[in-house]
């Protein structure tokens, strides 16, 4: 966000609204962090109380699809950031970054679905014990959030118009952006803990 441009025209009201929205979003992110943190707490308990991991003769999940998901979601974070920073400018470029984000978000979900079908085809179902329970449940909950965030992107469509009133949309863009990056971080932690180590 180019602070210089924005602060020039910053009225008290606009500053207040931005502050309000950023405090609220902070609370939201703390909330979601605690949700996922509790999951990881559970994971840690299972992981350290189990002699072998993965338990019960499971094999490690093939890294290909999770890695693909990771690459996609990192790229989408990048495109979102580009869109974010171009939001104050006019022109075509920000549209490209925006639709790239939409597309990458969709691809991430697709890669998750592939992961689930792949596990199914290997005969690994969610009922089969704690290991698949963790893999499926955590990715479900994360994916559900990605879907919500993805739909929230469409809520930013009006900002693509020419001559958009920046003050009336800036908080949307900032907040959706933060949420998007947040989900990327959560996925990264999941990738490292559930799949890598």
């Amino acid at each position: 966000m180019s602070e210089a441009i924005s602060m020039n025209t910053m009225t008290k009201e606009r500053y207040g609204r931005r502050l309000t929205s950023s405090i609220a979003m902070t609370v939201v992110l703390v909330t979601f962090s605690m949700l996922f943190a509790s999951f990881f707490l559970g994971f840690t308990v299972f992981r350290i109380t189990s002699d072998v991991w993965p338990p019960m003769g499971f094999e490690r999940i093939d890294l290909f699809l999770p890695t693909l998901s990771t690459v996609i979601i990192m790229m989408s974070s990048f495109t979102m950031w580009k869109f974010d920073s171009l939001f104050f400018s006019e022109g075509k470029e920000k549209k490209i970054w925006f639709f790239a984000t939409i597309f990458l978000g969709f691809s991430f979900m697709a890669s998750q679905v592939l992961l689930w079908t792949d596990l199914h085809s290997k005969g690994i179902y969610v009922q089969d014990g704690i290991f698949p329970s963790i893999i499926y449940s955590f990715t479900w909950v994360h994916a559900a959030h990605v879907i919500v965030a993805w739909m929230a992107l469409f809520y930013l469509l009006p900002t693509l118009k020419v001559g958009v009133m920046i003050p009336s949309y800036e908080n949307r863009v900032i907040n959706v952006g933060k949420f998007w990056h947040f989900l990327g971080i959560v996925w990264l932690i999941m990738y490292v803990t559930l799949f890598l180590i």
Partner: protein
Amino acid sequence: MAFYEQHIHDAPTTFLSKYIFSYDHKVIGKQFLWYGILFLGIGGIMALMIRWTLAFPGQAFPILGNFLFPATGGVVPADTYAMLFTMHGTIMIFYAITPILIGCFGNYLIPLMIGARDMAFPLLNMLSFHLAALSGVLLLAGLFTPLGAAAGGWTSYPTLSTLIGSPGVGQTLWTLAIFVLGVSSTMGAINYITTIITLRAPGMGYFDMPLSIWGLGLTAVLNAIFLPVLGAGCLLLVFDRVFGTAFFLAGAAATSGTGDPILFQHVFWIFGHPEVYILILPAWGIVSDLLSFFSRKPAFGAKATALSMTTITILSTVVYGHHMYTTQMSPLLTQSFMTLTMTISIPSAIFFANWLGTLWKGSIRFHSPMLFSLGVVFVFGLGGLTGLYLATVTTDLYLHDTYFVVGHFHYTMAASVLLGGFAATYFWMPKMFGTMMNEFWAKVHFWITILGLNGIFMGMMIVGYAGMHRRLYNPFIYEFAQRMIDINTFVTWSAITMGLAQFIFVFNFVHAVFFKKEKASANPWEVGTLEWTIPSPAPHYNFKDIPVVKCGPHEYGNPALTGDVDFQFQTEELAKS
């Protein structure tokens, strides 16, 4: 402070926009009040059924019994008993006390006491109430499912709450209901925190806020941080029940590295201990204010009170293990949790001493809100002290899961929090509905309630100390417990008395809201906080002009004051001689 000024919106005109889908924090507050009172009634009847069973085992529950339990001729059946105490606990904690103290008074008081026109996010606020209503429907729906509502206790420990322990839909609905309620409360918390930070009237620093706002704000912080932890537990429990995951399934562990029922207890109490403070903090804040208002003295050590509340909030996050001493934690852990729990005594003592300091040499006005506040001081003293017995590992190993625990938490939650809620209702009634409740009946209500509840909860602690277990349908099959039938009967009669006394409140309340002609004045209690500077009931935009705050909320008996008033409004310059 007041980072921007909210606009005055036109008053809503249709019935729906005024009373059902209102954005107005005051209306939403009242919605939560009615909601809470309704559930208080439902939970109360359940309590009476539990008590009836314990005092008169095998006898039909009067009046409602034949209608509710036709198969047993009106006697509460054993499986229904488990359902009753589960639903009673859940309803009282999440659907009665929470909506009244946090939903109602949080919404009502925060904007008014900090001089704002509304919450920061009115739409979110409205959604929060409607989600809470949906959650209430989900919870009650459990009662009408074939196997009945949840019966695993308000803590819903697995394996009682997994498909093995409770196969019916009731438990699933319970879990969903709690999850939805969690989302609703989180929305509330977002609003409260943001509003308190950004919309305080110009001139109002954090220490110029009434202590009620401190309590409500800290509660919101705890809610935002710890409700998601319960939410995670609920989600995993639903997955276990619906999709067949194995998070909390014991036994599956036989094949190594699988489910763990104790994990749920950790998750539950990481949330659950802060939750008990979530409930008590608003009551503490309100009582701290009221004690000062009615003693006509500045709140003694108001800053220290606020800081102790903050300290307790922080400490409350690291003591949850004291609920789990009997789960075979390592002794190192139990001892650490014991020490941490004991540490809470220090800020609690400061806090309590400040209450007494406020009363000391005050010119006390014994109006009904004051009586209820003094009641809180008394019962919370008892509740807090009994907490120390439970915090000590060696005594807790014996007392855990006896009626002593039930007595302890009813003193702290049912007694203190409820009395705090009544104090607040009597006190803000004129501002909310424009009329005062009848003082005489309020006092009658108070005295019967306080006598009744001491009879109940003191009795519970006595039988608990003597070893009577909680959650037993008929403890008297054990010989040693048979001698306790008399005390149990006494407790039950106290409960019936206290239950009946609540009708006094309901009649008084309904009469004042709907039938009373005589309007209250703008400031009937002669109090200086911002909400009393505007007419009663508060107009929909609250403040025509946003007030400018010049002094603290507890300016009483300042010798420099001239004229015949002994207090100042927060909008007035502090009188100096």
